[in-house]
């Protein structure tokens, strides 16, 4: 059997194992989904009035002004792309935790003593995790649509590009999360290590436009992976200006994925404990 077909076959076996885990024990993923859904509802229904009134003039939101209902609809439109990317971040915390849990299981030592493709354990985790992210996006996106999110004039191509961006972003964060899981001694530590994945979207342009933030803080919000990805997704779904955010987002994704992959492989190829 060639190396490639061995890799594909073993990775597929590992993927099925991980999906079986996810299906048997969905509570971890579901718990992590609560955060983005809660924030979405909180910001729309509790803070929504103040938020949209306060930032309406700063240009980030398409149609400011008008009645409270119109404001709310505009703010939902502004919020949902960021919430979707935050969903990716919080779901991949689950990846870090489950990878760490897995590495503490004896079965991993068994895999290491078998003549299987070395990377298949990790690839199985990554592909399974990306599939879980997509399911999560569907759920959170569904909540968004249910409370009134509508894409304005997005073409089929733009939808496809939006989907591609979400998958790429999920892939990048998942490889990073796998590295975090591998580098943590136990699941609790993994969950702490992975905190930036949920924290970064909070300090991005998810809730308010960057120029509504204090000046000293703007670079922090600007130069991190979530903001360009959020702006790109907004542009694709809502027709706002993308500018060079698209390329920056793709560059972030590719760099993070490559870094996460190299990091994870080198951690996994170390001698076991």
């Amino acid at each position, binding site marked *: 059997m060639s190396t490639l077909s061995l890799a594909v076959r073993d990775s597929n076996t590992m993927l099925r194992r991980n999906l*079986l885990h996810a299906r048997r024990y969905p509570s971890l993923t579901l718990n992590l989904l609560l955060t983005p859904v809660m924030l979405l509802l909180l910001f729309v229904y509790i803070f929504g009035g103040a938020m949209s009134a306060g930032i309406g003039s700063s240009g980030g939101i398409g149609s400011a002004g008008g009645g409270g209902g119109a404001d709310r609809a505009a703010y939902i439109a502004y919020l949902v792309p960021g919430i979707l990317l935050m969903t990716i971040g919080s779901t991949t915390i689950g990846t870090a935790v489950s990878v760490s849990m897995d590495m503490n*299981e*004896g079965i991993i030592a*068994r*895999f290491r*003593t*078998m*003549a299987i493709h070395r990377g298949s354990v990790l690839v199985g985790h990554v592909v399974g995790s990306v599939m879980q992210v997509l399911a999560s996006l569907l759920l959170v996106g569904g909540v968004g649509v249910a409370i009134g999110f509508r894409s304005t004039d997005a073409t089929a191509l733009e939808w496809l590009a939006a989907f591609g961006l979400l998958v790429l972003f999920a892939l990048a964060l998942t490889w990073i999360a796998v590295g975090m899981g591998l580098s943590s001694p136990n699941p609790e530590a993994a969950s702490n290590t992975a905190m930036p994945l949920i924290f970064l979207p909070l300090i991005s342009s998810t809730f308010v436009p960057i120029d509504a933030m204090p000046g000293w803080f703007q670079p922090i919000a600007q130069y991190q992976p979530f903001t360009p990805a959020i702006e790109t997704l907004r542009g694709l779904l809502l027709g706002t200006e993308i500018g060079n955010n698209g390329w920056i987002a793709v560059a972030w994704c590719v760099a993070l994925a490559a870094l996460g992959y190299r990091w994870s492989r080198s951690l996994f190829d170390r*001698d*076991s404990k």
Partner: protein
Amino acid sequence: MPSSVMPTSSNITSAAIAAQGLRKAYGDKTVLDGIDLRIPAGSVFALLGPNGAGKTTAVKILSTLISADDGQAQVGGHDLATDPQAVRAAIGVTGQFSAVDGLITGEENMLLMADLHHLPRDEGRKVAAELLERFDLTDAAKKPASTYSGGMKRRLDLAMTLVGNPRIIFLDEPTTGLDPRSRHNMWGIIRGLVADGVTVFLTTQYLEEADELADRIAVLNDGKLVAEGSAEELKRLIPGGHVRLRFTDPDAYQSAATALREVTRDDEALALQIPSDGSQRELRSTLDWLDSLGIEADELTVHTPDLDDVFFALTGPTSGTSPAYHPANTTDSPKENAR
């Protein structure tokens, strides 16, 4: 190295596992300090040692889990350092901590192994079902492995190891933590493997287990092999046989101790130990001698040297041997005493 007791037909010259000068240290702590091994194909080899002697480290190195700092080894004819993947294809490993996936069922664990050995679907199902049956797990096959008892997990673990039909199997403390019945079951299973011509590398801290199962035993202490041979050869290494006389009356004990003089005293238990090899002839002369002195003990037991004696003599601090074992420190042989 004396020749071992070998199963008849197997290839005597080929070593399933050979190692030269294996070393491993973690920081300042040397765990393995130059281990040489040669294990003939089709035999059972037991690596015996106290906790922390380096048994698990040896298994981890030979099963490609960790790399040695120095030395080399061949497993199944493949070099560990240059062709670990070929070694992995030849071996099966059942580690000290159960290597089963607790989140999925026993059957799913078996099918996972079948998939990873690239068995066709039908054959995988067949092999899984057969092994589950053989290891008495058919009834529990649909339950998550995390709900299994210790003995069941260990059986599932070994069943998973056997899916790929490995010719060399590493068993790291396969019966640690099992109740006596499960342990005997496991022994039966291991004997079954040997009957199929599989080479078994076993680590254990139970001397009885090594005695029961192994063709050859090596005693590992503090990272070094301190003895190697068959159980019989090891037992011959040290004098440990004695006759133990126990008294209930302290006065009788005192007078006997005075009369016998050159014996090991255990004042607390009111017991005396007279060195003896356990043969009928020596026992008779010892009894005659006791009769001639008018000593009548309330209880007489014959203690032949066993692997416990070897173990305690070869491992651990020399002074702190087990309370059950008092080395016969008299240089007199029983025959001299009997005269």
